[in-house]
């Protein structure tokens, strides 16, 4: 009897341990970027994929003209009795295109440059080993690709050869943000509640700002008219005057502001994890209007002409008028039926959205219909 009980308890412990406790493995939610009719996106199985939007709309065989796939893997130990195994990397950032190259950083701590014509890898950084996990997107300034790493540094690499131009000092325990470029400065928000301005030439810190509460910033910063707008873990959207230690205003949401805000015509559009998009006056932080999408907003909003596009974790995509009030606000509503967390992009009336089902959707926001979709799980 006792032996059976013991067996039962041990089995129950093991079941509990694995059924309830295993940490979620990173799968990534890479955004989409567009250049010369080609869409570039990181898939959930560690691939960088170039898609010809025209070929996809005609449902041509993949790969068509200008299309390619590059699978990025990392080698890990396969367990007690197995040798090293190759596993796909997670990709969170949105690829950046410059000239004939496309750049991306991966969660295993590597930066890659690919030839946009054929997907051949031009370089990777570092050549040996890894830097900290990369969650933010790369940005290009003066033939230099800059990105933040979870080792707390900002890396600036030569776009042509992938050689290090400079590394910043450690700014924070980990950096997940995407740098914002304004003139010859890079603006960085950190998990420990700091904002930094770095020189794009050598990475030196030219300005820093700490919030009183030291509560971290979770969204990437946006700079407009000398003001930094950034979302915080303290459930506030902060407006901080650049190169000063002055917080102009704080706007309180119902949860954290994860998505990078969008600023246009003196209005800040900020998606919040409370499921609402807030339109806030950039000058004084007063709320102009809000719209409840009913599900956390992780992806940054986008403006197509005068229409505001928001996508939420439930898979709903809303096309909103920025000027209207009350019930007139919704122009169209679409659903892709799966979570949307990645940044999306637009071309004309078509918005390209990547779902967490590893599928890319082309949505005509003015007609309110899906024009095509393409699964990113390719051979």
């Amino acid at each position: 009897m006792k032996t059976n009980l013991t067996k039962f308890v041990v089995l129950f412990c093991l079941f509990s341990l694995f059924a309830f406790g295993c940490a979620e493995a990173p799968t990534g939610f890479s955004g989409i970027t567009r250049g010369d009719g080609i869409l570039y996106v990181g898939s959930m199985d560690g691939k960088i994929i170039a898609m010809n939007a025209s070929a996809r709309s005609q449902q041509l065989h993949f790969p068509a003209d200008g299309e390619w796939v590059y699978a990025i893997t990392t080698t890990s130990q396969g367990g007690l009795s197995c040798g090293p195994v190759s596993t796909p990397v997670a990709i969170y950032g949105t690829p950046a295109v410059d000239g004939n190259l496309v750049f991306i950083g991966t969660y295993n701590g590597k930066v890659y440059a690919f030839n946009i014509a054929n997907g051949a890898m031009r370089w990777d950084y570092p050549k040996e080993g890894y830097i900290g996990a990369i969650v933010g997107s790369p940005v290009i300034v003066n033939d230099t690709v800059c990105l933040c790493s979870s080792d707390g540094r900002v890396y600036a690499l030569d776009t042509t050869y992938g050689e290090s131009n400079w590394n910043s000092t450690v700014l924070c325990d980990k950096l997940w943000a995407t740098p914002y470029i304004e003139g010859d400065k890079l603006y960085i928000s950190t998990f420990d509640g700091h904002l930094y301005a770095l020189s794009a030439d050598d990475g030196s810190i030219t300005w820093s700002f700490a919030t009183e509460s030291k509560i971290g910033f979770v969204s990437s910063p946006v700079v407009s008219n000398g003001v930094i707008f950034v979302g915080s873990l303290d459930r506030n959207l902060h407006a901080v005057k650049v190169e000063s230690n002055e917080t102009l205003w704080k706007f309180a949401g119902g949860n954290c502001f994860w998505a990078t805000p969008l600023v246009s015509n003196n209005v800040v559009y900020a998606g919040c994890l409370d499921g609402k998009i807030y339109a806030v006056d950039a000058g004084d932080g007063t709320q102009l209007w809000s719209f409840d999408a009913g599900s956390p907003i992780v992806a940054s909003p986008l403006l197509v002409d005068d229409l505001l596009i928001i996508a939420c974790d439930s898979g709903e995509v809303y096309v909103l008028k920025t000027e209207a009030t009350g019930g007139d606000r919704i122009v169209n509503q679409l659903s892709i039926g799966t979570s949307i967390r990645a940044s999306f992009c637009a071309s004309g009336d078509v918005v390209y959205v990547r779902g967490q089902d590893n599928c890319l959707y082309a949505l005509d926001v003015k007609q309110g219909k899906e024009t095509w979709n393409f699964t990113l799980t390719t051979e």
Partner: protein
Amino acid sequence: MADLWSLIILNPMLNGLIALTSVLDGSFGLAIIALTIIVRLILVPLTLKQLKATKALQGMQPKIQELQKKHGKNQQKLQQEMMKLYKEAGVNPLGCLWPMLVQFPVWIALYQSIMRALATTPESLLDLFRHLYSWEVVTRALPLDSHFLWLNLGVPDGTMILAIIVGGSMWVQQKMVTAPTVDPRQKSMNSMMQLMMPFMFAFFTLMFPSGLALFWAVSNVIGIVIQYLVTGWGYLGRGALPKLPLTR
């Protein structure tokens, strides 16, 4: 069901853990230790009930072994005699199991809280926000500082120190409660369990975030203390077999 679980058990514990971190000067390691102690203290009545039931069962082992010798070949008779014995002694053979099972949801919630609070990946951080209350004491602690002593609580401890502490403390605890036996099958099973469980958890320590292993270590140490207060050192260091009446 999952929503109910989160609402009633997981969310209060998770937010409590993060609030404790805030109170304990941002130390997530200290918060894990404190919450483990608090939870174990709350569960003391159940633990005592379980220990007493186990002790009573172990006290009956000589009589059970006697019955096994006597009716070993007739399982039906053996079961009948054993049930009679339990009834006469007023002992429920499942008495040590139910308090343990009742405690499991609490342990699972504590375990989930630690894993969720660590939020090492963007997905897990997003998921964490779904469970947090809008209390200032909670948001003030974010993001959690995962450093504690020599450990990064979000990744496994590569030094083996924590694995040795977890495995060693579990072995001591097992040794204190496992009664020696003359039955070779039972003896072999006991020896295996005494080694297997500590080894298994030491192995898990090398694979799981060290914040979780810290919880196992603290929980084991508290278990040893409670066990000591109830039964003394129990069977630890006692190699001798229980004296059995040599009857046929």
